[in-house]
């Protein structure tokens, strides 16, 4: 069956356009690029009656559009604060702006550190206040009650981000740059923080942050600080409170993806929402639509990270397939989700979270059926049938591990072979934790009488999960460090992986060149 997947080619070309212009930023002037896109579109219209030729020009336009979009997104206007930052490196500077992200709180030595993104509106120069633009990351080392969309006035030291360790390829500076943040403002404990205007207006984001705070209060009432840190990450997308030793355990056993809300979490939560909505007597398609709406609201609540956006889009597409009675294709909806994320922020392509999120799904979709068929071929038929679920689970786990290992080795200099087995056990446990967690939050909000018993079940399942991860980390050879992993080595790894997975296609191409297969385009 020939599956129609237009979004895959569009996403690949758009991505290539972004990639080329990242590597060669000044390859062609922006104005010429726009002209080429216009010409390509023109030719696509002129040759509209010849589909193959028209498609070529259309795809060329999409490829060039990727570059134009990336360059326009990376462009800093003359008003940008980046242009004047170098004059304020040595002394404190006064800045006014709007809090444009969630305010995260962390304990820091003897006090509190609050971090958020500030949309700059003014900076104080020796000639007075000047209008400036741009986003900066603010670290405030004091306990102040800041809220989303508050307009504030700060005094602090402006500096460029620095990389903490040169041992891995993960760069904090690049991580911030992918979010269009090039500067950090550090506000000391005794520096004044003044409110120009407190946010009184209602907005969806403000409501979701307020709801998140309330839900976290419910968790604080029944769980210890460390447990709240883990549960906030798994249920509410807040990773700043995860204890360092727990983070290390999860990273070393290759199960750190559990601490980030992604496809599995969204899938479980969508199932729970759908299950409860089915209790309401309503027409079936309405249940799918309501579930989609609730999932989108949940995505806003937990913060729209790439993995959350990807899985939300894919879940909504899946739900809508029932409403419109159309078949869905996983790879096509994955490509669609990638396009949405890249349209919002093309620099997300270089974000490690984006890369891991998409490559893991591609790996599972492409490799797990092949691994499963190889394992079934090697095993006896009766054994394969009896342990079908286990073999399927192992295939998915191995496929995901193969897909993400290259990137994990590059960014974090660690390889965790134990994760193949660990994930087989931890993922079902994680599903129980998520179901119990969401149920606890619902019960604690609407039927607080039962919150205590729900919290105990959740506490025990969470601690059992961490205990099992701890035992996996103790297995000899469970993980090992790997140094000096270059980008070309990672690229070669994925090329080899791709060649193995596309063996029939490669054989076909090889035969084509050997003259064994006829091709209508060649004489």
């Amino acid at each position, binding site marked *: 069956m020939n599956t129609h997947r237009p979004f895959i080619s569009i996403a690949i070309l758009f991505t290539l356009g972004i990639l080329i212009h990242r590597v060669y930023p000044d390859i062609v002037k922006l104005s010429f690029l726009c002209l080429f896109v216009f010409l390509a579109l023109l030719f696509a219209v002129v040759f509209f009656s010849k589909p193959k030729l028209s498609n070529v020009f259309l795809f060329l336009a999409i490829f060039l559009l990727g570059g134009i979009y990336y360059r326009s997104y990376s462009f800093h206007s003359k008003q940008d604060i980046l242009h004047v930052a170098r004059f304020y490196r040595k002394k404190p500077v006064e800045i006014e702006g709007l809090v444009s992200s969630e305010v995260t709180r962390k304990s820091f030595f003897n006090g509190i550190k609050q971090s958020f993104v500030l949309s700059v509106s003014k900076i104080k120069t020796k000639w007075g206040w000047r209008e400036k633009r741009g986003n900066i990351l603010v670290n405030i080392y004091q306990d102040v009650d800041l809220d989303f969309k508050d307009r504030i006035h700060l005094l602090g030291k402006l500096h460029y981000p620095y990389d903490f360790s040169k041992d891995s390829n993960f760069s904090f500076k690049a991580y911030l740059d992918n979010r269009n943040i090039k500067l950090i403002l550090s506000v000391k404990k005794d520096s004044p923080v003044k409110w120009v205007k407190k946010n009184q207006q209602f907005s969806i984001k403000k409501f979701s942050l307020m709801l998140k705070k309330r839900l976290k209060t419910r968790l604080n009432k029944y769980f210890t600080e460390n447990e709240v840190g883990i549960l906030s990450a798994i249920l509410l997308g807040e990773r700043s409170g995860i204890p360092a*030793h727990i983070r290390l355990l999860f990273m070393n056993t290759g199960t750190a993806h559990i601490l980030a809300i992604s496809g599995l979490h969204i899938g479980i939560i969508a199932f729970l929402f759908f299950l409860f909505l089915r209790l309401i007597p309503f027409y079936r398609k309405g249940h799918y639509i309501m579930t989609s709406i609730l999932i989108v609201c949940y995505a806003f609540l937990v913060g729209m990270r790439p993995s959350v956006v990807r899985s939300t889009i894919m879940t909504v597409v899946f739900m809508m397939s029932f409403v419109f009675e159309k078949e869905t294709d996983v790879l096509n909806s994955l490509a669609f989700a990638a396009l949405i994320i890249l349209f919002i922020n093309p620099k997300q392509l270089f974000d490690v979270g984006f890369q891991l999120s998409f490559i893991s799904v591609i790996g599972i979709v492409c490799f797990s059926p092949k691994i499963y068929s190889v394992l079934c071929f090697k095993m006896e038929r009766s054994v394969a049938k009896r342990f079908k679920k286990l073999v399927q689970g192992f295939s998915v786990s191995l496929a995901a591990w193969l897909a993400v290992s290259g990137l994990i080795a590059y960014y974090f200099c660690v390889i965790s072979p134990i994760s193949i087995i660990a994930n087989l056990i931890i993922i079902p446990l994680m599903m129980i934790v998520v179901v119990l967690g969401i149920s606890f939050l619902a019960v604690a909000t609407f039927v607080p009488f039962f919150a205590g018993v729900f919290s105990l079940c959740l506490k025990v399942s969470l601690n059992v999960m961490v205990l099992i991860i701890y035992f996996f980390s103790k297995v000899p050879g469970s993980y090992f*460090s790997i140094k000096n992993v270059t980008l070309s080595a990672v690229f070669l790894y994925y090329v080899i992986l791709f060649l193995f997975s596309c063996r029939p296609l490669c054989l076909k191409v090889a035969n084509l060149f050997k003259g064994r297969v006829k091709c209508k385009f060649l004489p």
Partner: protein
Amino acid sequence: MFNLTQQERLVLFSFVAIVLIGTMLQYSFKKNPFLMNMVNVVDSEDFYQKVDLNKANYEELLIVPYIGPVTARGIIAYREKKGAFTLAKQLREVKGMHSENYKKIIKYLSINGQNLRNP
């Protein structure tokens, strides 16, 4: 009136099962408080991954939370200059070690297989 759909049965079954298990756990923890400590893995220092202060090399020290390149180099320099660590408080003499960091770091360290405790 007593007919339940499949979804209603699943929800009701799950709710009753969780309440039952939770109530049994509540009773067990009240009767035997030590069970609560057994279950408390996340907060227990026994489940921290320990690195031996006298055997770990630079890369192994960097993996420890709150130990950065300066502190890791300081620990190795201290070992080379004054020999192996024998007491936890010797860690305070390492270059780059603050008292707040020290309290956090010792949970992840051991000396010759013995866990370090804050004196």
